């Protein structure tokens, strides 16, 4: 806490995106970014990252292991808007186009210590069967304008009233979820 400056508290997060279970896909990579409130600001570390491409392990569990490190420090004055990590997983489809395989978000754990989080992943569904086919065919699956929307509540309240949106809410495509382990030290 800098003398004279406003008091802040720091939140140091380090951990890693360990592995994922995507039974149907292989050769995936993942991106992460953080979504946080107005009173938060990153002070150190990387806010975004993109991992290497990993192949399925050969053992029975077929995990996609990244072990991709996360290390970031936030400062904040308000627990409101606690950071969330947003993960999006991409991989090639049959035609070799990079398509999104899953989105997911989770809050950074609130208590210090080692935490393991398993996040169910989902992707938005096409609005119609035809679109589903064409999007598959053309390798342009529906994707979020910004992965960060999965961590934002805005617009969700409209989901019930607007005919189109409920589909955008996303269907869990992957029965087995991606996993993220966060180790997490408080300040």
């Amino acid at each position, binding site marked *: 806490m800098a003398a004279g400056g*406003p*008091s*802040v*508290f720091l939140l140091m997060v380090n951990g890693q995106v360990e592995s994922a279970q995507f039974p149907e896909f292989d050769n995936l990579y993942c991106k992460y970014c953080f979504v946080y409130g*107005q*009173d*938060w*600001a990153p002070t150190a570390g990387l806010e975004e990252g993109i991992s290497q491409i990993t192949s399925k392990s050969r053992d029975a569990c077929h995990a996609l292991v990244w072990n991709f490190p996360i290390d970031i420090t936030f*400062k*904040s*004055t*308000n627990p*409101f808007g606690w950071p969330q990590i947003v993960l999006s997983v991409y991989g090639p489809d049959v035609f070799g186009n990079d398509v999104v395989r899953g989105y997911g978000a989770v809050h950074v754990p609130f*208590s210090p*210590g080692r935490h393991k989080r398993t996040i169910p992943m989902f992707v*938005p569904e*096409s*609005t*119609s069967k*035809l*679109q589903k086919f*064409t*999007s598959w065919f*053309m390798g*342009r699956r*529906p*994707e*979020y*304008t*910004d992965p*960060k*929307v999965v961590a934002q509540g*805005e*617009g969700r309240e*409209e989901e019930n009233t*607007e005919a*189109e*949106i409920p*589909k*955008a809410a996303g269907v869990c495509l992957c029965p087995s979820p991606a996993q993220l382990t966060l180790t997490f030290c408080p300040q």
Partner: protein
Amino acid sequence: MNPREEKVKIITEEFIENDEDANVGKRKKNSKVQRQPRKKQPPTTGPDKMVSEESHLGNQQEPAQDKPQTRLLSVTARRGPRSLPPIPSASRIGFAEFSMRERMREKLQAARSKAESALLQEIPTPRPRRLRSPSVKELETEFGTESGKEVGSTQQEDDSQSYSRVKFHVSARKIKSKPQVPPGFPSAEEAYNFFTFTFDPEPEEAEEKPKHQDGTNQEEEEGEEEPPAQEGANRMDEEELPHGKDAENFLLGLDHTANEFLAVRPADYESVHVRLQREKEMLFIPSRLTVPTYKKLPENVQPRFLEDEGLYIGERPEVARTNQNIMENRLLTQEPGRRWFGDDGRILALPNPIKPFPSRPPVLTQEQSIKTELETLYKKAVKYVHRSQHMIGSGDPSGNFQLDIDISGLIFTHHPCFSREHVLAAKLAQLYDQYLARHQRNKAKFLTDKLQALRNAVQTGLNPEKPHQSLDMIQKTINEYKSEIRQTRKLRDAEQERDRTLLKTIIKVWKEMKSLREFQRFTNTPLKLVLRKEKVDQKADEEAYEAEIQAEISELLEEHTEEYEQKMEEYRTSYQQWKAWKKAQRAKKKKKKQATEEHPEEETEEPYPEEDPVKPTPPEPTDQAAIEQQVRERAAQSRRRPGEPTLLPELSLAGSVTPNDQCPRAEVWRREDVKRRSVYLKVLFNNKEVSRTVSRQLGTDFRVHFGQIFNLQIFNWPESLTLQVYETVGHSSPTLLAEVFLPIPETTVVTGRAPIEEVEFSSNQHVTLDHEGVGSGVPFSFEADGSNQLILMTSGKVSHSVAWAVGENGIPLIPPLSQQNIGFRSALKRADAISSIGTSGVTDMKKLAKWAAESKLDPNDPNNGPLMQLISVATSGESYVPDFFRLEQLQQEFNFVSDEELNRSKRFRLLHLRSQQVPEFRNYKQIPIYDREIMEKVFQDYEKRLRDRNVIETKDHIDTHRAVVAKYLQQVRESVINRFLIAKHHFLLADLVVEEEVPNISILGLNLFKLAEQKRPLRPRRKGRKKVTAQNLSDGDIKLLVNIIRAYDLPVRKPTASKFQQPSRSSRTFREKHAASPDTRSPTHSADYPLGQVLVRPFVEVSFQRTICHTTTAEGPNPSWNEELELPFRAPNGDYSTASLQSVKDVVFINIFDEVLYDVLEDDRERGNGIHTRIERHWLGCVKIPFSTIYFQARIDGTFKIDIPPVLLGYSKEQNMIIERDFDSVRSLSEGSYITLFITIEPQLVPGESVREKQFLDLLAGDEEEHAVLLCNYFLFLGKKAWLVIGNAIPEGPTAYVLTWEKSHYFIWNPCSGHFYGQFDTFCPLKNVGCLIGPDNIWFNIQQYDSPLRINFDVTKPKLWKSFFSRSLPYPGLSSIQPEELIYQNTDKVAAAELQDRIEKILKEKIMDWRPRHLTRWNRYCTSTLRHFLPLLESSQGEDVEDEHRAELLKQLGDYRFSGFPLHMPYSELKPLIDAVYSTGVHNIDVPNVEFALAVYIHPYPKNVLSVWIYVASLIRNR
């Protein structure tokens, strides 16, 4: 000094004392050691010496080491010192000392009694045969006399302990020495006398002596406080040492008295009895017997029990009864007052005397210094383990508990696949079960026996054999018996009837079943009912039956007669009453008659006080025959007829089921359907599935056997245990039939002891089947005509048992019950009971109440208050309606601070305002944690705005009218922004999800074609960029790309040499209206310039948001840069939302400068050595493009006219035909300078929804359309042909221009700037034309092209222009919404002048601000010259004044190198003026001794339109 310190100090003092004590002890030991050798000294040591020595030592040491040899002598010799006068300090003895002394005395007393007993023991022993020596005798007498004196006297120096020890030793020695009787020693008698005489008086004085001695000792050695340790040490010395010594003494004694005597005696023994006797005299032992209550209470007072009166009395601590009695006895004896006893005769006691925390001060041992106590300890932070009340022993390592669920099977009592026979079978089985249960209980038999017993009792009661019982009592009991007999009989009759009907029903159902089997000609169920007849002895049976009936009749008769008598009695009394009344009535009447005769007037007033009592009717006597009839009827109905055999039904499964091939098809289908069905159960613990049974096929008997035991290792407190019955038909998915809720077993129920229980379930599913199955929830009938419809629902029973498992070591794995209760009670305590109804702890009120009743909660205990209240509320049932309603019953709990306090918090306010999206706080980041860190000024602006919402502030806006406009605009802006904020949260699918459009076949084909396309084509085509929504951007993400391509026709420098010449007419002025005449462009003038001299070295500087980039310097008036400049873009407050971006007011300034090099070398001689030049830049002109335009247009590509000041001193627009000939044809019609630009934003932003807020606001009074309409109307007013053009222009985008027709030319007017362009002007900013609007029609462009260069404006051609009003829709002659006449008021000239002065002042200040490191000098002379000049510019519109102006300036400022220019702008706000001045870069000159001149002129036009001229110049004195 605080108390703690004090304590510490005291303790240390004690320590020191203790140390001293220890030293003393050591010394004692030393002295002991010192004295050791002395013991071996011959006994010749004189007694005197010994005494003196003893007395000397006695001062500080215990003279425990008295030598036995000298004992006798020393004892006598010590008398002397003992008779010393008492110390006067006795009075100083304090209380503490006193108590101490008391203790000492007790000890001494004990010692003394011992000694005494030893002495007493001696009395019966034979007299010691001892010789009496004269010396001893002498001593004896001496002693005798002395002893008398000694009474009451105190000894100062001697030690009491030694004294008692003396006695002891003496007695010991006596024992030793007695048998030995050497000659010359006192005789036995003498010895006896001696001892008796010597010691008799001693006990008396001993009582007093030690007291004082103790006191003195204590005083001398320790002062006031003597710790018990010291005492202990003393005692140690006292007890231990003498014993050691005894042995020694004994030996020594033998040694020295070898020639003396030795007597052998039996060991001294004091009988227990005697000792007890003696102890009894001295000690008080309270009795253990219970003290009668009357002793404990004041006389004639009954004990009062508050608890019985309903008052709450806390639970007393557990004290053994004997202890209590002892205490009571002691209290009674000690303190006769009864203040120790309460009203109930018990000792007063607190409900709970145990403190929750220890109050003992910390005990400090010697090793521990105080510092270590005060030291801060580091304890590692322990992670807080959340312990919920529903978690069991989370901190408990043995936290695994196990619940065993045994699911043995499932029986369907109804199933859709039941055939009719099954239905009956199920019914039969059910009835049979009922029968069996009843049979087992055999209530009828029990009741019959009871009846019999009662009758016997009555019989015996009537013949009393015990005469001592009072008759009343007997009568009473008999009456009771009788009533009971009546009751029992009724019950028995009911039971018997029920038994009989049950039996009948069973038989009926069985018959039905049989008939059904016959009817359908097959058997489905193996059920078989056998009725076993049990023969009975008819005669006996009949007798019993008759006897029973008779007994009943007689009883009934008795009852009836009793009743009759009672009624009769009633009748009689009432009859008497009636008679009396009648009589009275009659008498009254008579009286009345008389009275009426006397007082006729009173008659009417006499009312009848009572109604006439009805004459009672006598009751009817009972009819015996009727009663008998009744009884017999009933017996026949409910009882087995006499002689009738008893029927015992027996249900067996012995029947055979008809095989499939003999059954009709429907039945076969049914059976197959049954076979296809299978059932399994899911076990849900706390609503979570934990396990499931295997799926078992449904048997033909609709029974499923599972026989599975599930061991649930549980961690959470069990809240619910549910079984779900699932049925699977074939391969379809399982359907949930029903849910069975199992109770959580009591903690006493453990595995092995739990009985198998059956829980019924039923399902509400409706099933209709197409075979024999009756279905479920569907009506069916057994009758042929379909009457008597039945609706059966699927139902069944699950047999199971639930129990707690038993661990390996026999401990049941049950979560502790206390946890559950504690958590829940403490939760209750916090809130009031009603509000906690909603909390999860209390779910089942009934259960809670039951629990409370079972656990015998004291309703008066304040601790249980809330619980009791809750229970009373809950159990008072549904009828309880509280007279209040709590909407948010738990709200109170969450109100951690009052509303006022919350509002006072600055932080909260800030957060609140931010969440309300108040503009000042909308993008406030990092709201400080603490209130104190929030500056009050944060709110100042906001509060001021709130205050001034309607107050017009003129400070910022110089001119009042503008201020009003600005205010209004501000409000409009706010409301628009607010609307945007609402819209911002309204997302469409497209805002969130990017999804490809469904391609039509052509696109699909194109895409297919694309597959075959080259990956890297030789001639790449431009692809559209991906648009980015603005919502997730941050600083630095957006860049503004400005591509400066080239400029045309820039002004060129005039040779400085010609400054005194008249300006040549050949040079072109900027403002020549029409195409330059060929003669002005004659090449002759190029001779003015020396060849090779660069005319101008222009470079472009782009400034945006105070970031400045510039290109390299090019040469010539038509430079080509082709450079891309990249400028970062920062949104206001980092808010990249669409709304925010739209409101960006920043403007991109593209300034063109001329770089001028001046040789500043002062000494010509050095010219050879170095070049010393100064670079100056002269502003040539600028292009301003608002950011919002770029934002909306996404890219701006085109050639723009450079805004060049009307007067640019030192520059002229000279044509160099040699260079520029190529361009002539292109620009033939235009004049001025142009620059070609390409501006875009990277990445491309998605513009907002067509709200042109920015432009609208920027223009302040209206946008292009309004200007265009106004201009068009002017033209029309002047009688010109004019139209409004709607189209796209650069840089405005969609806009409105004005088209006029003049002399076979079309002119396109920019209504905002007033510039006009010919139709074929390539630099015309209007790029395409959508429609034309004339005074009476609207035409839409339907031509192939829309560029004004290529279209035909002839609206009469319908092929080219589609008119809105046509023959089909004629012009209806709309009236104008515009006012007929516009009134132009004159603007206040004084105000304008004032404004002019203020602007000038502000600008000057600004320039000085921009030059913080340099001195800014103002040349007043120049300024005034410029000020005079500006009105000329306004009047001449900047035309043709340059030469005169220059001449004038030269005349006046001949010594100065002058660079400056007038800026001409419309006035709206101050900021654009400042920006414009800043963008010229005049202030950037850092030449020393530079001077500045700045003049402002405002020309007021009517309607408050102000034309502002700013003349900025820098002057450098020429040398």
